[in-house]
């Protein structure tokens, strides 16, 4: 029972970590780090088709992806020269805020078979 309570508590805390992303600060960070220079002005029209659309993507996935770029060539990382450089200055809080902002934008992405 105690373990269940702890598990529930941890679940609530981790959910809040994402729900608590600060959209306004995320927007400021996106401007500061020029995310739109590649991912497109509305984050739906990347400047190159090999870059992903970010608008409306799940916030927790975006945070995971940014964290993975931070891990770089290490376990569970993503080794990408451009994104590896971009994420370097970001704190964990920055990542959550950026993810919350990008998730808040109107999306062209869908979940469909």
């Amino acid at each position, binding site marked *: 029972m105690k373990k269940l309570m702890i598990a529930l508590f941890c679940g609530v805390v981790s959910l809040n970590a994402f729900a608590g992303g600060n959209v306004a600060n995320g927007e400021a960070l996106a401007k500061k780090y020029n995310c739109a220079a590649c991912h497109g002005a509305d984050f739906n029209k*990347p400047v190159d088709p090999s870059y992903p*659309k970010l608008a409306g993507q799940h916030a927790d*996935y975006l945070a995971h992806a940014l964290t*993975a770029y931070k891990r770089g060539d290490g376990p*569970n990382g993503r*080794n990408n020269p451009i994104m590896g450089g971009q994420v370097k200055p970001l704190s964990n809080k920055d990542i959550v805020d950026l993810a919350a902002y990008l998730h808040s934008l109107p999306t062209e*992405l869908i*979940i469909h078979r």
Partner: protein
Amino acid sequence: MKKIFALLVLAGIVNAAAAADIVGNPKAAAAKVEMCIGCHGIPGYKATFPEVYQVPMIGGQSAKYIENALNAYKKGERKHPSMHGIAASLSDQDIADVAAYYSQQATRTAQK
């Protein structure tokens, strides 16, 4: 001059032929997306390692990005055990077909 022109034309044809080698066919993807829909087709489906997160929405991404991502998982530039296993099992043609399939979902949404 004429010869150079003819060469250029020939080179153009060869290029076009090379580019035409692998063209994604969304209709051929029907059987190939079986592996994708078990996670990416379920709203709210979550991956749990090392972070807990909803698997990304891929419907509507450009074909080129999906190909890029799958190739990065295949080559290990993106280190993700499940996606590596899946991407490694796909041929270049499979990847092109799957990418075409999911990117077409964008066209349908955009047409709305």
